[in-house]
């Protein structure tokens, strides 16, 4: 029997010889060859950036487009004279030496790619500086693409260079330090759809122009372009709505399609141009973006306000559902307000409304009716009812960071004001949408659309479908939620009658809001608030032809009364819509470029299994990249 240690020694010696032999061959026999290769070794993997999906309105008219841009890249390995480079970049591109140090030195383990130094440069500047680049072989101009946002708005959001923390978070999803990423709005919410998948290619650059036969076979992974979004927005209506909103007033205007929940116009004022973010932002522009009027704030979903009287249909609904009142119940007489306990709560109309039924109370917006009604309602019930009406809870609109709004319950009052807090006085205020009640304009819009739609609440949304490389319907991307409002048909009819009276009956608070060809429904609101002495002006309403058409919400910060300020704007929108209804409703034909893509995709779908397998192997190589070489 051979001793085990003898076998081990032989095996170890053989392995050693094998390694030594291979090393000798590699380093001594072929060493000079590899030295040559190393000198000209520009064999590197280059990322082929996928084209980001564009954004269109519901008639395939562009909202966000890709346009070519000139970008400046740095290849850190080629740097010869760092101080000179630093000086040059500082002078012409306002890149400070610290920024350069950060880009080059701190990220050296993250990449061996070219580093994007400056993007979307002015073409004149590129021409003027091109000759200087001879002195800086490490710098190179390349054509890339940037986003063009066709009009100022708050829903598209904008893209930007990935920052340190985003990179740490998403690097496993194949982002590079040069990548763009959606920062806000739809660009952020649908980042996954819009982005596509970057490709890879092997670039062999040899000083002598020789081809280095290092790789055999296919060395290209094609990029997969992002999907383009088709929104429910109507560019014409959006444009009209932006102009209809009075200049100099802060606020929001939302128009939605009652039957689908799709948003036709989405305006928040003051607004800003997202294209500004595609260049280096000058301090003056930065200052204007951060002005006191907060132009960057999306007042449709990122802010919530006391709704005031537009909240009254909710209170009425609960009273009717709880059988505290019916269509004909008359509550306490309004003598310009009413006394609750030892406090007198004023109605907005000092002359008083007398005893009113629910329809009349809605029509004249009598506060006293709702004060009295609130005394019959339990706060817990009220809280739950508001939540079930999808107010003070997120609507789930396809935009990031939606504000939830607020409606308190007993526990909240106890926590905030102590155990012995008197709930009744607070409840009186809540009943007319004041006090702690907070809603965002989008929530109010969805609620009124649901009233128009026979009580069926539909999740408001912007995306209708995707086109381009893949055609996905809205429901394939994310199913639209539908919920029933807690209202029986009879009670819904009573509230609708009230809303009809607001616009059509004598004494209604929004008599001006009438359009030929359609019946208008609505509710005004003038909400007292902590932001200023003047009330917030609200109008929420909808129009019905043979079927319910659109719901409009107008909100104006500290602008005055809802009937005087907000209702006329809504009427303009209704007028415009009825005047152009054929145009807006006519289904758009799919443009040729998307039709062909669609046909191609159908071919792909037929071969679903092959497609799956392909995807799986793609992911696999992606993983490998992430593990071992962070591109």
């Amino acid at each position, binding site marked *: 029997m*051979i*001793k*085990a*240690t003898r*076998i*081990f*020694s032989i095996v*170890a010696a053989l*392995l*050693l010889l*094998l*390694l*030594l032999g*291979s*090393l*000798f061959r*590699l*380093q*001594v026999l*072929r*060493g*000079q*060859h*590899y*030295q040559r*290769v*190393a*000198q000209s*070794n520009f*064999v*590197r*993997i280059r990322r082929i950036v996928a084209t980001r999906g564009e954004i269109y309105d519901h008639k395939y008219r562009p909202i966000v487009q890709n346009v070519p841009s000139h970008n400046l890249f740095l290849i850190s*390995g080629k*740097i*010869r*004279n*760092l101080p000179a*480079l630093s000086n040059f970049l500082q002078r012409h591109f306002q890149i400070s030496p610290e920024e350069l140090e950060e880009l080059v*030195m701190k990220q*050296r383990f993250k990449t*061996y790619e070219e580093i994007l130094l400056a993007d979307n440069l002015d073409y004149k500047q590129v021409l003027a500086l091109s000759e200087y680049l001879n002195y800086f072989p490490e710098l190179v101009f390349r054509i890339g693409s940037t986003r063009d946002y066709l009009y100022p708005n708050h829903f598209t959001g904008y893209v930007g260079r990935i920052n340190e923390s985003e990179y740490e978070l998403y690097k*496993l999803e194949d982002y590079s330090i040069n990548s763009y990423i959606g920062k806000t709005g739809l660009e952020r919410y649908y980042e996954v759809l819009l982005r596509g998948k970057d490709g890879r290619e*092997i670039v062999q650059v040899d000083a002598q122009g020789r081809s280095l036969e*290092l*790789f*055999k*076979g296919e*060395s290209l992974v094609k990029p997969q372009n992002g999907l383009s979004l088709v929104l429910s927005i109507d560019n014409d209506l959006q444009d009209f709505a932006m102009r209809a909103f009075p200049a100099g007033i802060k606020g929001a205007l939302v128009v939605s399609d009652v039957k689908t929940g799709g948003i036709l116009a989405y305006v928040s004022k003051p607004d800003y141009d997202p294209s500004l973010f595609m260049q280096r932002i000058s301090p003056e522009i930065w200052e204007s973006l951060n002005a006191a009027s907060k132009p960057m704030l999306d007042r449709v979903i990122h802010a919530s306000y006391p709704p005031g009287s537009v909240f009254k249909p909710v209170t009425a609904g609960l009273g009717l559902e709880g059988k505290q009142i019916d269509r004909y119940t008359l509550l306490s007489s309004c003598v310009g307000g009413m006394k609750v306990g030892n406090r007198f709560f004023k109605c907005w109309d000092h002359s008083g409304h007398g005893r009113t039924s629910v329809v009349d109370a809605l029509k004249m917006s009598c506060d006293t009716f709702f004060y009295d009604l609130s005394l019959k309602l339990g706060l817990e019930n009220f809280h739950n009812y508001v939540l079930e009406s999808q107010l003070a809870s997120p609507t789930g609109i396809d935009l990031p960071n939606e504000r939830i709004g607020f409606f308190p319950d007993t526990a909240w009052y106890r926590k905030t004001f102590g155990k012995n807090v008197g709930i009744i006085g607070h409840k009186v205020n809540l009943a007319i949408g004041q006090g702690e009640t907070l809603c965002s304009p989008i929530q109010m819009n969805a609620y009124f659309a649901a009233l128009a739609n026979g009580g069926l609440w539909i999740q408001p949304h912007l995306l209708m479908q995707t086109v381009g490389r893949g055609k996905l319907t809205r429901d394939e991307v994310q199913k639209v939620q539908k919920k029933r409002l807690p209202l029986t048909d009879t009670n819904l009819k009573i509230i609708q009658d009230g809303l009809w009276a607001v616009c059509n009956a004598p004494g209604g608070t929004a008599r001006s809001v009438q359009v030929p060809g359609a019946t208008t429904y609505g509710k005004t609101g003038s909400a007292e608030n902590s932001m200023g002495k003047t009330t917030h002006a609200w109008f929420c309403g909808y129009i019905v032809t043979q079927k319910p058409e659109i719901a409009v919400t107008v909100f104006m910060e500290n602008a005055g009364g809802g009937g005087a300020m907000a209702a006329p704007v809504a009427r303009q929108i209704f007028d415009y819509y009825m005047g152009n209804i054929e145009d807006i409703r006519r289904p758009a034909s799919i443009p040729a470029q998307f039709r062909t893509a669609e046909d191609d995709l159908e071919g792909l779908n037929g071969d679903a299994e092959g497609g799956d*397998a*392909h995807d*799986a*192997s793609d992911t*696999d190589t992606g993983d*490998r*990249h*992430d*593990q*071992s*070489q*962070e591109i």
Partner: protein
Amino acid sequence: MINRKKFDFLLLALMLLLIILGCVAIYTASSTLIGGQMSTQNYWWKQIIFSVLAIAAVVGVLYLPMPVFELFILPAFILNILALVAVLFTPAVNGAHRWFNLGGIHLQPSESAKLLSILVVARYISKEGLNEYKQMFYGFFIMLVPIALIMMEPDFGSTLLFWAALITMLVAADLPLFLVLLLISPVISVVASVHWLVILVWNLLLIYLLIRSRLSWVTITVASIVNVFISLIMPVFWVGLKDYQQNRILTFIDPTRDPLGAGYQIIQAKIAIGSGYLNGKGWLLGTQKNMNFLPEHHTDFIFSVIGEEFGFLGSSLILLVFALFFGRLIFGIGQLKVRERKVAASGIMAYLMFQSFINIGMNIGLVPATGIPLPFISYGGSNLLINSVSVAVVLKYLNERGFMK
């Protein structure tokens, strides 16, 4: 507790030398010279801290009384197996469930499983009164538990180490060589199935070797039929695999098929090492390293940095130190008289040697890239710790040799 006459100071010194060389290599691997400016990442400094911890662990193992140490092995192994199960339920990092994250410290239970499995297998296959078949059977099934769990992480590369250690331990346990041959023959048959000519040659060779071992005709016939069958059935399996699964296996065998992934690294590593030529480009001056053509050059591809900056002379020197280290280790195994300890030490030797060979082989394009680090040299705390403790176990056995129980 150290017995000055018996303690193997040379083996310890060689290990320390490797660790020091590692810290030096990591320093240059994590430095970059760009346009006359140098920046160094703090990996080398962390590795020095890891080294100190590892040496402390070595001392700890040496001073642990032998009975306590032996009592400790089995419970630790069972705990380790539980940890391997638990780690499967952690969130995936890079698509694999390998690490416990304890406040920034990443623990990889498959590392300690290597050493503990070796020790436990060594104990069970060295029991008195076992015949060869029971030895094989026990060894195989004990190893299968951690291997199956590690495969599920998934971490294919690591499991190869377990098999290498098991075969070596069986040889050390004086299992007849023909049995070892029978044990590994199915694996060779799978590999041989690529071409009918290879199948033929391999099976003739197998039959010849079995006849030389004077086995009964029945055994030889059964063994060869089974092996031929395995070779012939493989193409059927192959066709049954999905396209991407086939691709994955083919890429494992031939990385240049995937020039943007595994192939890219190996080609870049070869260029780096090859361009080192005889003397290398000099300390800190590796151009391929400085331009970051190679990722991970402080961990899996550290040998390419050594090859580039110190040339053939430098890399041969590293190989020489490794050769001396393993030579001394094998010499030590010859000194051990207690069977269990001899078998365990052989497993440890195989596990370290296999890692070193695979890693260097991967750097010079000899074997596929599997993500196995170079023992004592590559950056990484837990790997260094387990490798050092493994050597400490051998040192401990050597220190107490002669006390027959």
